[in-house]
């Protein structure tokens, strides 16, 4: 990255943000939005960065209709602040990303980050019901709405979630939120894959299930009291303290990668990791995170993951590794279509140039 006089802009409103964006774009300056910065290590190296758009002043809860279980927030709000707000009504947003705390909601959406609760609740794409995005021409465009079910117009939420700000800057979003479970129990085992497979075969699925390279497995059960108790008993595992999840969410090695494969292929790919590698994975979803060593290792494992129909992307890596193997791997076959969409939203490529695949 050529760092030359980065101008920092910290807009206080969506309109202010939109006009800063428009001005920068009109002047041919490249713009990088940044929230908590927790996910900023992901993706390719920025080719340019003339203006840094700090999102953290846009941190309001715009509306929380507790009875409707819907919340609308500005993108710069920190996840922990939002959870605290929701907790007052016994609700929560099922996002529990790694490298916590300190993520902003907008950053999480743009990065498409998830955590262990993905198993039960899906990813942000599954519960983001509305979005407001600033485009490089200064327009503010919304899609979706504030109701839990909506097919009015194109589902642009999907397009922006995980797009790493390449099409626009997310300024606000609405979510379907969930009631805190009546019972929440965490259990653990040391028996690795066997234990993980066992709990996945039980009639009641865990809300989260994480397996670690040292053979430890932790599972979390959400549900009505009797159902959770009977299932916990069926696991035969020891109860663990809920704090293991907070601890787990801090995970963020200096260099790490995300491996995503079809669920049924995950174990095979993980077993190809170098001996003694540190990793953790979610056997129920097909996602794994790996603290890799060098570029050669990454290349080898990526080849396997891609051959299994999946991917390996770098979550944090030194510049030389990013330069050598690329952050994203083999581009998707639909890259051409994606590029055309990029051109339609950001014709002069001022948004995060170099960061994403488009």
């Amino acid at each position, binding site marked *: 990255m050529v760092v030359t006089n980065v101008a920092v802009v910290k807009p206080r409103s969506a309109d202010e943000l939109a006009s800063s964006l428009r001005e920068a774009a009109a002047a041919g300056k490249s713009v990088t939005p940044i929230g908590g910065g927790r996910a900023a290590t992901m993706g390719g190296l920025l080719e340019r960065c003339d203006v840094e758009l700090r999102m953290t002043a846009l941190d309001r809860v715009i509306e929380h209709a507790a*009875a*409707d*279980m*819907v919340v609308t927030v500005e993108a710069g709000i920190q996840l922990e602040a939002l959870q605290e707000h929701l907790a007052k009504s016994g609700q929560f947003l099922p996002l529990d990303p790694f490298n916590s705390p300190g993520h902003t909601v907008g950053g999480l959406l743009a990065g*498409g980050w998830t955590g262990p609760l993905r198993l039960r609740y899906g990813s942000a*794409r*599954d519960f983001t019901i509305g979005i407001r*995005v600033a*485009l490089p021409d200064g*327009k503010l*465009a919304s*899609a979706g*709405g*504030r*109701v*839990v*079910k*909506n*097919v*009015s*117009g*194109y*589902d*642009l*939420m*999907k*397009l922006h*979630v995980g*797009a790493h700000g390449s099409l626009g800057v997310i300024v606000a979003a609405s979510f379907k939120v969930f*009631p805190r479970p*009546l019972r929440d129990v965490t259990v653990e085992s040391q028996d690795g894959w066997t234990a993980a497979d066992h709990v996945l075969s039980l*009639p*009641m*699925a865990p809300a989260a299930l994480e397996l670690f390279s040292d053979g430890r497995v932790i599972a979390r059960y959400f*549900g*009505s009291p*009797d*159902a959770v108790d*009977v299932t916990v008993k069926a696991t035969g595992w020891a109860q663990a303290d809920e704090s293991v999840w907070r601890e787990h969410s801090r995970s963020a090695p200096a260099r790490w990668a*995300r491996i*995503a494969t*079809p*669920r049924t292929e995950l174990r095979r790919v993980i077993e190809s990791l170098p001996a003694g590698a540190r990793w953790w994975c979610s056997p129920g979803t*097909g*996602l794994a995170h790996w603290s890799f060593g060098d570029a050669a290792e990454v290349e080898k494992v990526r080849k396997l993951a891609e051959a299994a*129909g999946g*991917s390996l*992307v770098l979550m944090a890596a030194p510049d030389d590794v990013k330069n050598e193997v690329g952050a994203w*791997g*083999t581009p*998707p*076959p*639909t890259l051409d*279509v994606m590029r*055309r*969409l*990029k051109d*339609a939203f950001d014709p002069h490529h001022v948004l995060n140039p170099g960061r994403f*695949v*488009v």
Partner: protein
Amino acid sequence: MPLTPQVIEELRRIVGRDHVIDGADDLRIFERDASIEGAVPDAVVLPANTKQVSDVMKVAARHRIPVVPRGAGTGLSGGAVTIRGGIALQVTRMRRILEIDPVAQTALVEPGVVNQELSLAAAPHHLFYAPDPSSQKACTIGGNAAENSGGPHCLYYGVTTNHVLGMEVVLADGSVHWVSGDAPDRVGLDLCGVLVGSEGTLCAITRIKVRLLRTPPSIATLLAAFPSIETASQAVSGVISSGIVPAALEMMDQVTVGAVEAHYRAGYPTDAGAVLLVEVDGIPEATRELIVAIRDVLAKNQGYAMREAQSPAERDLLWAGRKGAIGALGRIKPNYYLHDGVVPRSRLPQVLSAVGEIGEHYRLPVANVFHAGDGNLHPNILFDMRDREVLHQVEDAGEEMLRAVVELGGALSGEHGIGLEKNAYMPWVFSPDDLDAMHRVKDTLDPNGLLNPGKIFPDPSRRQVRLAGRTGFAVEAKWW
């Protein structure tokens, strides 16, 4: 504009002689889906595979002919209506279930596979396909994906988009692409997410990979009567805010229950002001506990005559009644006009009383049957199209109801799609900039506007068109 004999010949060479329909009389039979409006296609083409879809699309692109994908034609928003003429691309011959993978819990299907057939085929593996539109006996998975269909059980399980893992699609230029797939978090933009629910305006869908879920070991279905729609709505809010998300939470008003009982005899109480059908599933311990808690909430909200289905057969019958409800309304009047606006759940009592007042004002019978747990209304205005005068009233009433939904912070459509029916209302909820952003997607993928033209986006040339001026349908013969 009718297609030239040369174009017809080209199409015949692609799909086979018998699979292009171009006779004027036959074509008229394809003018409708399950909505109000109709328009006759210039040709109906029935491809057998992806290659044929792609080749048809290329011919259409070369001659600038509109293409409208069509499944079973059970859509309620006019999505399959060829309003600008052109080719109706009916995928009902592509109805193979290509693969069910019981280990990965996925299925690969062609777009013409009927929704319920997939669950039937998955049942021996103790799996099912969760999105269950009420028309699931007839509607196709391709149509479901195009419309992002919902259904009663989407309250807990999510709508179609949450269950589509990937799709093979044909774009307007005839190019074939796979978007997304079995692995989560694919690299790049989530094209699949945008294409699901794009109502045939961005692509034709040729294969769909869907997630299957394990059949829950235990299901409990509870029927409860309420003195009025308002009390039932309060009960819905009560359940949701108690922290329970049932698998399904459905409401029917008295008018609907009467029609449903006439056909299904499912044991719905016909004297109640409204009934709720609540279902929870999971392991037996969970369903037992949840049903007790739900009964409690319902009773506190004046629920009475609560009855739990005692057998799978009884449960099936209750659901058959619920799912056939809109069709059953034909017993009252031959035509229905319904919107499917969504409101925040806490606004249900308000919006339902507004719907009632509007019906009364126009002296039109209104039957409510809907996904209460989602706040997804289905007010059916019942009328007889043979009475041409009433059509204006119907349209005005429908519009006012939708207006009430929007004013309460709601959305135009929860699961039926915008299509032809509600595109004029899009500016009520979306600014010109919002629509412009959507249009960028459309223009990128379909620069010549050939795929399902005239849908979703407001059509300035048609703003003044009223129902009465549109094509009429079958009801004039006095058969029922």
